[in-house]
């Protein structure tokens, strides 16, 4: 008879992955709150949620699939397709609620279709859902190439509704901490999912399916029907997430949610549900999503680490979780394989140790290699000067002097103000170009003046205008100081319009034509920099 101690340990063992997630979440949040005062504000905490209800909803659907032992890579495609269909139908004049109902049905059907493929045609889940993702995303572009804005009134109400947090807000003045309606919707979905997972026969069948499909079949459970249903649920959740997203950004585009499925899977795995299926708590997924969000926020707040660190950190954390889960599963898996009287403990321990060492080593290698690469790259670009990003230190960059400049200053009305701000080795250089061809270069220490021709200046202006400088196509992609990349602030005045666009040097997320404009300006000022 198992003793109470054994029972206690065993009971805890089940919750270990969940506990690890909680600890990580607390650590991450604590780290962030300690270093960045802004994170301590409760509203910031709730704002975290604001941007991510669609991640949570989709992750809940994915949790069912993963617990059943499968995987659904189509979520990003379905989300994108949903946003596009919603925007297109609203534009065509449909009623908001009818649209929502329609896309939910569409997502559900799509999920059922993929589920049938996987169950009855025995296609491997990741191939089938990957194909599903392609088709869904491709369909977006059949509907529209560009983003479709949403102007529907119902959607706008849904987007702007603030739900005040009791205790942290003042209902009379309608200020204080709040969450958006979408977050509440996400929480509702979460609660329903928890109910289904733990209080319905369907939910238990999903767990059984993931634990041992053959046994579940022999025990008389409706295995095939359940398999199709989990993918159907995932399709529904993806569609719902898409609706949420379209409300958040008030538009629909086929390019939305790219690489989203990775985020979702990482969240579920970090919430303690192993990809091999059979165990995991829906509540854990909520925590996993939170960890994901907090880490992304920390990296954003830090500003020194590039956003790609997010992907790497998430990848390493996911690996760590998979390692933990693998470790725990080995014990059970190997013990069952033995038909001899006892599983040989010493060999088991040795195997497990080898496995854990390998995984830990791999994760360590990954992180060390990445830091090493980082350092090497920094050396190469610094021309020999060591420039190591120190985490948490105060920002060393001088701020952009022309930040927020809306009207070019001084007489003679400059037409272009071009500021390049570099890292610790570079002082911000500001080039002010005037219509008469004068170019004033100011690097904070000295001021030089050169001459170009008015014709050249006019030509560059025309070129920049032709690139759509003053349209919506060019927008800021540089938000925080102290990123490793260097900031540009370019202000152009032409025919009564003034616009400043900020960007990161070479940043890949900047609108492409931005760089064409910068190149054109370079042509104008480069001569000045030449020695």
């Amino acid at each position, binding site marked *: 008879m*198992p003793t109470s101690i054994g*029972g206690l340990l*065993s009971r805890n063992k089940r919750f270990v992955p969940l506990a690890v997630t909680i600890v990580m979440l607390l650590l991450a949040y604590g780290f962030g709150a300690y270093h960045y005062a802004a994170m301590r504000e409760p509203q910031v905490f709730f704002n975290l949620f604001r941007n991510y209800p669609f991640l949570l909803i989709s992750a809940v659907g994915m949790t069912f699939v993963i617990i059943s032992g499968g995987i659904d890579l189509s979520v990003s495609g379905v989300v994108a397709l949903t946003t596009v269909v919603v925007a297109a139908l609203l534009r065509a004049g449909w009623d908001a609620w009818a649209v929502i109902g329609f896309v939910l049905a569409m997502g559900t059907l799509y999920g059922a279709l993929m589920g049938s493929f996987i169950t009855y045609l025995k296609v491997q889940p990741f191939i089938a859902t990957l194909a599903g993702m392609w088709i869904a995303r491709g369909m977006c572009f059949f509907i529209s190439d560009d983003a479709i804005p949403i102007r529907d009134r119902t959607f706008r109400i849904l987007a702007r509704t603030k739900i005040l947090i009791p205790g942290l807000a003042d209902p009379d003045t309608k200020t204080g901490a709040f969450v958006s309606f979408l977050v509440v919707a996400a929480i509702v979905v979460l609660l329903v999912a928890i109910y289904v997972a733990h209080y319905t026969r369907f939910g238990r*069948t999903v767990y059984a399916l993931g634990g041992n499909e053959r046994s579940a079949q022999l*025990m008389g459970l409706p295995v095939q029907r359940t398999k199709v249903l989990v993918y159907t649920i995932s399709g529904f959740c993806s569609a719902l997430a898409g609706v949420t997203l379209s409300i958040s950004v008030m538009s629909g585009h086929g390019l939305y949610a790219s690489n989203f499925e990775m985020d979702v899977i990482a969240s579920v795995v970090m919430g303690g549900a192993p990809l091999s299926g059979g165990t995991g708590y829906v509540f854990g997924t909520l925590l996993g999503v939170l960890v994901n969000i907090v880490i992304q926020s920390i990296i954003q707040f830090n500003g020194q680490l590039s956003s790609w660190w997010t992907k790497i950190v998430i990848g390493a954390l996911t690996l760590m979780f998979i390692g933990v889960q693998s470790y725990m599963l080995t014990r059970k898996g190997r013990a069952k394989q033995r*038909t*001899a009287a006892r599983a040989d403990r010493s060999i088991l321990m040795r195997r497990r140790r080898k496995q854990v060492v390998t995984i830990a080593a791999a994760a360590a290698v990954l992180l060390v290699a990445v830091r090493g690469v980082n350092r090497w790259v920094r050396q190469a670009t610094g021309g020999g000067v060591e420039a190591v990003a120190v985490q948490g230190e105060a920002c060393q960059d001088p701020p952009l002097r022309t930040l927020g400049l809306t009207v070019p200053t001084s007489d003679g009305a400059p037409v272009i103000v071009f500021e390049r701000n570099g890292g610790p080795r570079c002082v911000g250089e500001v080039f002010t170009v005037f219509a008469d061809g004068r170019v004033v270069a100011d690097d904070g220490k000295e001021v030089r003046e050169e001459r170009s021709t008015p014709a050249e200046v006019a030509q560059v202006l025309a070129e920049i205008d032709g690139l759509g400088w003053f349209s919506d196509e060019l927008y800021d992609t540089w938000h925080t100081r102290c990123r490793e990349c260097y900031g540009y602030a370019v202000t152009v005045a032409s025919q009564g319009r003034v616009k400043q666009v900020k960007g990161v040097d070479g940043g890949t997320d900047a609108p492409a034509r931005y760089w064409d404009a910068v190149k054109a300006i370079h042509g104008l000022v480069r001569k000045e920099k030449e020695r």
Partner: protein
Amino acid sequence: MADGQTDVLVMKGIAKGFPGVQALEGVDFTLRSHEIHALVGENGAGKSTLMKVLTGVERPDAGTIALAGRTVAPRSTQQAQALGISTVYQEVNLCPNLTVAENVLLGHEPHRRGKIDWRAVHARARELLLRLNVDVDVTLPLDTYPVAIQQMVAIVRALEIGSAKVLILDEPTSSLDAAETAQLFQAMRTIRAQGTGIVFITHFLDQVYEISDRITVLRNGALVGTYETRALPRLELVAKMIGRSLTELDEMAKTKLETARGIKPETTVSARALGKSGAIAPFDLELHAGEVVGLAGLLGSGRTELASVLFGSEAPDQGTLAVGGAPVEDHSPLASIQRGVALCPEDRKSQGIVDELTIRENIALALQASRGWFRYLTVEQQYELAEKYIELLNIVTPSPDQLVKNLSGGNQQKVILARWLATHPRLLILDEPTRGIDIGAKAEIQKLVLSLAEEGMSCMFISSELEEVMRTSHRIVVLRDREKVSEFSGEVQEQELMQAMAGSAR
């Protein structure tokens, strides 16, 4: 029959054939209520096929099944379960990640107000387990508990979900220790008292005598007989399982084992106190060049484990092993092959052949493995090798490019043999090389083993057919219950052997 006992299950004239082998022929089997009925037989006797027919996994070619007087013909395990026939297998087909209580009631959980009433689930599961004297926390996951408890859970589920007319226990004690077995038996007695008929499939003869009321013996797909346990002496049981009658044994003269004609004094392999806990107790063994050592023992006595430990496919954890005089440090199949030790595994299909590869590739495989990645046997060389052995072993095939999966069992076995012969081993261990093979091929293989010995190879011949072992060996080692118990050479009486295998002369 005792009062109140009925024939709950009557199977008559069951026959089932597969391509190449007749698994069952005219088998009758009756199970009474309130009875524990042991079903015994060596490998290939047909026990599992008979149970598969009963549980709907296989359809019989002939024969009838009557359950509580009504003729039934189950077509699936679900149907069989609905009829009241439940099975608990050795691998405990439950979901280890779910709790004990869940496993008991999965798919049949009581509901209250639209959701699963967990309190009721836990209470009912606990109650059912307590009836069998199993006192565990039913809210913990199933895999926190050892196999013994998991089996109990499976039994409880089988009885609860089905209507508990017939309960089949397939090798339930293989993974249990003495205390757990005792607990299981106690539970079985309780179940028996409640009226269920239990079919107890096992190869542990001690247990058969401890718990069962009647015994049915199968051999080579046919029914040998059904007996009252009290009335059947142990030695007679073993004799029936192996295929001899008691009188035959008494009358049989001593058989002379093959004379050791070409046995050289040099030791090819020497094992001292070599063992692996849980698999095979430490044993001493010496094998000489030119000698065939037969390994005899009942199912589960540890023959395959001994072979595995010698070959290195299972690493021993105590004792020493020397091959050709040199001590062995690393135990792995590759190292053994390179040292000249070869093992032809027991399960041809899953451990021997690579079915989608051709004969040529299968034959060349081990030799190539011993040469490593880069010392490639060219395709011409592989063909030469294959053709040589096709002729030598008389493998029936139109060409060496035939896929091995298309060959008959006997020819497949020859291909595997060829693979090992190609490595020119010093010691060749053959584990059940003639199982599932026709008579002609059997004789060929036996003759081959002897001729290999004559050429100087050491051979170890493992088989559950006693007469085969006797015909082919110079020396016989007997195992029982994972332990080497005796060695025989020179003249040997079959009865002696069987006594050693069975453990007593009851």
